[in-house]
């Protein structure tokens, strides 16, 4: 009696009777081409006792499709080389082939957890090119909806952070917040994640009843709920002791690494574009810029917590001071800005989001440059990880909160 064989030519690799003479499914970390730079040659040369290990491209703690080649000695990370491009869609090129209205919808999927912040700099740069005056009500709605999005993004960060450290509960709790907010924004914009809500000269729709009633409900209990969520982590000794002193960065290095947002503020630099380079109606709003001086993972986490509270303050003021009026400026359907250049930067939940647009007088942008903070924060992982254990290295990366959609554009 012979063993049953399948009709396919090759036996399955998990069949224990099959002896494979080559390893399959194992990603070889060493690239199959000669090193292109000095640094690459240095990285891919192993000293005694060192070895390479691949993390990704499919790995839960890489927050997307990222491959990191770690050079390890025992369990310590010696060096690392992030390999990008798995999500690269060429958004900048796509925008150059779309007209100014169409380009906005390419900006959304850059950072899929905080889409409004990706739309905003693009829209703002287009408005600068066209000299459009945005109605005040539209500006207030922009601030209101984007601050909600910031809370949703930071809530998700808290969950992820804990998940990468091995705690499963917080992500379930933080998704309660995030889900409520994205449902709210879905009532306003029609979409849960990729909102495509901002328009050149305003926003797509006025506030509606469902959004406002959901928001009112949520604002009543948000503070208490966020407090209880944070108590879950802040009073957890394992979490706090593991995060303290991990991945420390000082303020000069952070500036040299072009970091921005909460990661920079966690090192003690009170740099927030809402104050440093005011835009929209932020000069009229009252809020503080939370900073920490430690510059470690715990500081980055706590800065984001404090930011949630400030965002709630801003939302409250927006609701109280929301002016009446139109939500869109009057604009022709076909936009042909005069030849020129415009740059707009905003403060997002991860740092400075910016867009640089060159117009050549046609209805399509000639060059659209998108600047994303995740890209630069992921770069500084190379500075923070070496010397830590592999498990801690993942915590360091989670605390920087990069989103691969933005990194890969």
């Amino acid at each position, binding site marked *: 009696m012979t063993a049953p064989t399948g009709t396919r030519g090759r036996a399955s690799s998990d069949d224990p009777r099959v002896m494979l003479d080559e390893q399959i499914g194992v990603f070889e970390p060493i690239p199959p081409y000669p090193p292109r730079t000095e640094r690459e040659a240095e990285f891919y040369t192993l000293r005694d006792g060192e070895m390479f290990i691949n993390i990704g491209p499919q790995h839960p703690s890489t927050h997307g499709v990222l491959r990191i080649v770690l050079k390890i000695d025992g369990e310590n990370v010696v060096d690392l080389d992030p390999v990008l491009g798995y999500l690269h869609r*060429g958004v900048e090129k796509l925008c150059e082939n779309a007209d100014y209205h169409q380009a906005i919808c390419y900006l959304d999927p850059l950072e899929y957890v905080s889409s409004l912040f990706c739309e905003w700099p693009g829209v703002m740069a287009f408005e600068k090119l066209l000299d459009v005056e945005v109605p005040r009500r539209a500006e207030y709605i922009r601030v209101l909806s984007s601050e909600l999005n910031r809370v949703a993004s930071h809530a998700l960060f808290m969950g992820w952070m804990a998940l990468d450290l091995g705690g499963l509960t917080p992500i379930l709790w933080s998704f309660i917040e995030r889900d409520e907010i994205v449902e709210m924004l879905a009532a306003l914009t029609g979409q849960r994640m990729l909102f495509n809500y901002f328009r050149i000269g305003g926003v797509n729709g006025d506030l509606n009843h469902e959004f406002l009633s959901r928001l009112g409900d949520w604002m009543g209990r948000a503070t208490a709920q966020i407090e209880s969520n944070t108590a879950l982590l802040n009073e957890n000794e394992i979490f706090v002791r593991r995060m303290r002193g991990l991945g420390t960065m000082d303020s000069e290095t952070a500036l040299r690494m*072009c970091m921005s947002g909460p990661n920079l503020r966690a090192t003690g630099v009170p*740099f927030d574009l809402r104050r440093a380079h005011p835009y929209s109606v932020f000069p009229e709003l009252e809020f503080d810029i939370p900073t920490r001086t430690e510059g470690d993972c715990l500081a980055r986490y706590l800065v984001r917590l404090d930011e949630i509270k400030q965002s709630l303050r801003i939302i409250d003021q927006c609701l109280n001071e929301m002016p009446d009026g139109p939500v869109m400026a009057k604009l022709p359907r076909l936009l042909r800005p005069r*030849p020129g250049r*415009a740059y707009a930067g905003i403060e997002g939940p991860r740092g400075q989001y910016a867009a640089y647009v*060159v117009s050549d007088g046609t209805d399509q942008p000639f060059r659209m*440059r998108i600047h994303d903070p995740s*890209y630069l924060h992921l770069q500084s992982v190379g*500075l923070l990880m070496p010397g830590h254990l592999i498990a801690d290295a993942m915590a360091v990366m989670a605390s920087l909160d990069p989103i691969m959609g933005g990194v890969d554009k």
Partner: protein
Amino acid sequence: MDPALRRRIERRFGERLSGPVRQRHDETELRIGAGDAGEVIRALHDEPEFAFTFLADLAGVDTGTTMQVVYHFWGASTPDWLRLVVDGLPRDDPRVPSVTALWKGAEWMEREAYDMFGIIFEGNRDLRRIYMPADYQSFPLRKDFYLADDAARSPGAGVRHMEQTHAPRNATPAATVRRTRA
């Protein structure tokens, strides 16, 4: 707009500017040639009357006739964004000095500009492609990039680009390049 910044720039870099200092909305723009880039950026970073400590962005631009590298800076000395355009780089061999000595974080932004435009940043110790595969031959954000020509050799072959539909099949690359005087 910050006219004081404009006067400071004109006084300090007068003869090095390759065009007038332009101001619009909250942006101040100066243009220089590649030869002066290193010194001017160092001066903008170091000297207390400028003190642009925050590199907000670094972008390559292909105008169709020349290459540019565009830097955006933020500094506490002015409410404006400062835009520095390093202008007039030849398209067949664009070279600028790297700013990684001042901002280590510019390394990846320069890698991106190299990957997308082929701009060589002299002094960047890790200037290799970052998004595109290592065996990729061309520079996708250049204005003379057509997928039909060169991406057929890449692992992504078979994807047809919308730009291809704009380019007549028998046109020379020079005839179809979109240009701007920006």
